[in-house]
């Protein structure tokens, strides 16, 4: 393998550093009209009246669409149910009727010849409402929260075991609403082609999901619609479901019968989706010797009034560590906000934050080193199903992470380490995520000139999919990287699910492997048919593709150039497409793991916290590209620092409105907030998880980071802040 496992630079790097990579809001079209959205200022009720009179009198305004006058859209809520929609509930239908479900809901769309005109006219639209009573506060609504079904079964008798435990820890941890805030604004450019066909450039993590959704909502045939997202300026989960700007942009293009661009404002994006505010209640019971005996985990999260969004927050607690007794419950509290969404390792980021802070507190109670506690509870088997892992090198993560960090120099006593006027704290945590794989199809077209084109509908949301596809294809086809081009993010390409859940690398790589194998067979047949073929007596099993040649693995010198075989067979191209389907296998657990070590320095008088050092040791099977994978883990660590110290969407519960809907008041980490981050990939060979041993690295980078930082803050200061983010006021309170 010449490319798999190497630090190959991004194949789309030049396009991104020269500004030629085209994103959803970049597509050009003659006669483009522009949209501006008017949003509701109340969280619940009805639109009593929309007065668009003044807006319509503005020179250059083309139309103002609302529920009163929009073109036809599907009535059935099922038509709005995309691949990622929660099972329970009815999706929001933008501009459908007069009902207001959340503050910031789109209620009118102003269309104009120029964007500035649309935006100005949108300010002139007058709306009157009938306001209904509403709720937005999780801490008030938790009393009315209802339990949702989760796959994880309790074991033993956690309540009695906890009551009898020698050492107990019980606490609540809180994660506020967080927003993804990708830098690219949500945008759609819809090209109207005159024959009723639409080409939609959309900011999305799933072009086929958006395509199917639009076909259902607008009663279009698949051939009438093409959705493109060749580049996406960050998603972090916010682009898994179709967002309302694409619905509105298509509505507008159909209304005006001309191309339309609709770009949301940063403020409007806060009403798309978010990580749900969640209370994580942990109840741990241990034996005095320092082994875990019982785990109880209850999560209470917000959801909307119209959909039940829930992820696995609690199951990690019963899976990760050995404990005889475990019980879980996940509750949802309905609030008058939009439906929450997946955001960077959904469920694990929040649930493991609670678990890993609780484990730290238990280690303090047991007077144990936190790594030592985790080693004592270490399990080589998935504790839910009592099955082995395909691989689990978490022990090695602890060992290598601790060694690189210098953990053995830690003084366990809080407030015991200093650097001048700053208190120094060292904290750690574990991380866990799933190694998933989805059915995916890939097409390979190999030319007699030795050039291969690989295509698949997956999007590259910045994770490096273009690059790993090129690497895997180049290796499996025996071609140089430069001879491979990759097409992604087009709904007309071979089938792929949304890009998320860390399943893209494994899914697309095995689809490439399957299709490349078809190409290999085809080339072998052509090679055998050549006159005096050196491969005439060869068996398919012995045939490999390498250096542009079809070779006999047993005798590397024996072979023929692919170009010759194709020429003799009068084939100027070989085209294969095949789908790799994933068989369910419950014999083993499939997970990635990590150990995170963090150093903070806290100004004793001011309470200002700096995360000066993070070491993240990750076990995630085969790493396809050590350069881009490192960047993904690093990005997860930065996201975790934000979660620990900065990020919080503040809701004014008397107005039912998000107050800090911009990137100046919603704090995300900036360059000066981030110091040294070291990423270690622990060697984890795994031929059980899948043939290529790929587990995926998108999510694992963030899981556990906020806990490691919070635990370091405790170690530095002796103060335990369980409500995120850990801000100066909470620390000095």
């Amino acid at each position, binding site marked *: 393998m010449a490319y798999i496992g190497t630090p190959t630079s*991004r194949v789309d790097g030049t396009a991104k550093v020269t500004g030629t990579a085209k994103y959803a809001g970049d597509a050009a079209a003659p006669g483009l009209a522009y949209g501006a959205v008017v949003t509701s200022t109340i969280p619940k009720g009805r639109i009593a009246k929309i007065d668009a009179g003044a807006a*319509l009198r503005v*020179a250059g305004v083309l139309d103002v669409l609302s529920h009163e006058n929009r073109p036809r859209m599907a009535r059935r809520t099922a038509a709005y149910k995309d691949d990622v929609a929660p099972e329970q509930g009815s999706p929001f239908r933008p501009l459908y009727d007069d009902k207001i479900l959340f503050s910031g809901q789109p209620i009118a769309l102003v269309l104009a010849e120029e964007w500035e005109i649309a935006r100005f006219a949108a300010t002139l639209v007058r709306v009157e409402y009938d306001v209904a009573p509403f709720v937005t506060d999780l801490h008030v609504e938790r009393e009315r929260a209802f339990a949702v079904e989760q796959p994880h079964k309790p074991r033993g008798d956690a309540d009695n075991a906890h009551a009898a435990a020698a050492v107990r820890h019980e606490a609540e941890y809180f994660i506020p609403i967080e927003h993804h805030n990708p830098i690219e604004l949500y945008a759609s450019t819809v090209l109207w082609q005159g024959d009723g066909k639409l080409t939609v450039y959309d900011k999305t993590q799933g072009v086929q999901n958006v395509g199917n959704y639009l076909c259902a909502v607008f009663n279009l045939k698949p051939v009438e619609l093409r959705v493109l997202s060749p580049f996406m300026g960050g998603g972090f989960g916010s682009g898994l479901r179709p967002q309302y700007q694409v619905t509105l942009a298509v509505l507008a293009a159909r209304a005006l019968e001309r191309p339309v661009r609709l770009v949301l404002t940063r403020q409007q994006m806060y009403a798309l989706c978010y990580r749900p505010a969640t209370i994580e209640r942990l109840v741990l019971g241990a034996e005095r010797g320092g082994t875990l005996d019982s785990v109880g985990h209850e999560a209470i999260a917000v959801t909307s009034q119209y959909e039940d969004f829930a992820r696995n927050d609690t199951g990690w607690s019963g899976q990760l560590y050995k404990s005889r007794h475990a019980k879980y419950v996940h509750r949802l509290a309905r609030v008058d906000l939009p439906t929450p969404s997946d955001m960077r390792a959904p469920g694990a980021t929040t649930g493991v934050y609670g678990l890993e802070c609780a484990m730290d507190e238990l280690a303090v109670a047991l007077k144990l080193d936190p790594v030592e506690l985790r080693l004592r509870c270490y399990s080589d088997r998935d504790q839910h199903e009592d099955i082995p892992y395909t691989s689990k090198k978490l022990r090695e993560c602890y060992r290598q992470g601790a060694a690189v960090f210098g953990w053995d120099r830690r003084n366990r006593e809080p407030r015991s380490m200093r650097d001048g006027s700053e208190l120094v704290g060292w904290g750690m945590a574990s991380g866990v995520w799933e190694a998933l794989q989805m059915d995916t199809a890939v097409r390979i077209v190999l030319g007699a000139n030795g050039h291969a084109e690989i295509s698949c509908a997956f999007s590259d949301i910045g994770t490096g999919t273009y690059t790993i596809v090129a690497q895997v294809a180049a290796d499996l086809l025996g071609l140089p990287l430069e001879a491979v081009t990759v097409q992604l993010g087009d709904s007309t390409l071979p089938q792929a699910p949304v890009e998320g859940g860390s399943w893209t690398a494994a899914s697309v790589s095995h689809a490439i492997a399957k299709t490349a194998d078809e190409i290999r067979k085809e080339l072998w047949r052509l090679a055998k048919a050549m006159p005096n073929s050196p491969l005439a007596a060869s068996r398919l099993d012995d045939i490999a593709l390498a250096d542009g040649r079809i070779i006999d693995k047993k005798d590397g010198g024996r072979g023929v150039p692919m170009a010759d075989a194709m020429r003799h067979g009068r084939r100027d191209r070989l085209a294969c497409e095949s789908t790799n389907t994933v068989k369910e296998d419950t014999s083993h657990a499939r997970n990635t793991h990590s150990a995170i070590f963090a150093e903070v320095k806290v100004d004793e008088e001011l309470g200002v916290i700096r995360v000066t050092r993070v070491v993240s040791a990750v076990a995630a099977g085969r790493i396809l590209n050590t350069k881009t994978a490192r960047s993904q883990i690093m990005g997860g660590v930065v996201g975790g620092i934000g979660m620990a110290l900065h990020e919080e969407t503040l809701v004014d519960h008397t107005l039912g409105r998000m107050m800090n809907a911009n990137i100046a008041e919603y704090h995300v980490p900036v*360059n000066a907030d981030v110091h040294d981050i070291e990423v270690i990939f622990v060697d984890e060979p795994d031929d059980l998880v899948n043939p290529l041993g790929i587990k995926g690295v998108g999510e694992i980078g963030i899981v556990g980071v906020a806990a490691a930082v919070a635990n370091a803050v405790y170690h530095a200061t002796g103060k335990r802040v369980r409500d995120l983010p850990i801000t100066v006021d909470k620390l000095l309170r």
Partner: protein
Amino acid sequence: MARKFRKRPSGPTIPAPAKIPVSLTVNGAAREIVVAPWVTLLDALREHLGLTGTKKGCDHGQCGACTVLLDGRRINSCMTFAVMQDGAKVTTVEGLARDGTLHPVQQAFIDHDAFQCGACTSGQICSAIGLIAEGRAKTVEEIRELMSGNICRCGAYPNIVAAIRQAMERERS
């Protein structure tokens, strides 16, 4: 064009502001546009000059994605109107490479994988070139501080700093 879905009400037309000619030198080429005073430099570049390499991330000067070089200095192009810059020289990410050779900062960004999604990258690169020209940042801490107007939500900061250091060293040698 007739409105299909909502009739224009009676009453006087509310005019859009009159358009004004603006001359800019963009990436070395003289460009003339006629835009209303409310068009930002960012939107002029993207929507009137077809230079979509410069990105809009907030439109409020909070994220730095729209950073361009204006007469050699880095500026958030969403925070200035095109008409205010009549006669100015603007360099965008599209104007940095010379004869197919990437600018050292562009190359360093690829070498160090200083981006993932690419949405902040044009702004980071223009900001880094501005930073290097300012000559104020000598240490890693100063680079971090003086690059903090450019948010990277993918979290590539350590790689961005490494890329800038590489470009600075190449410049010195």
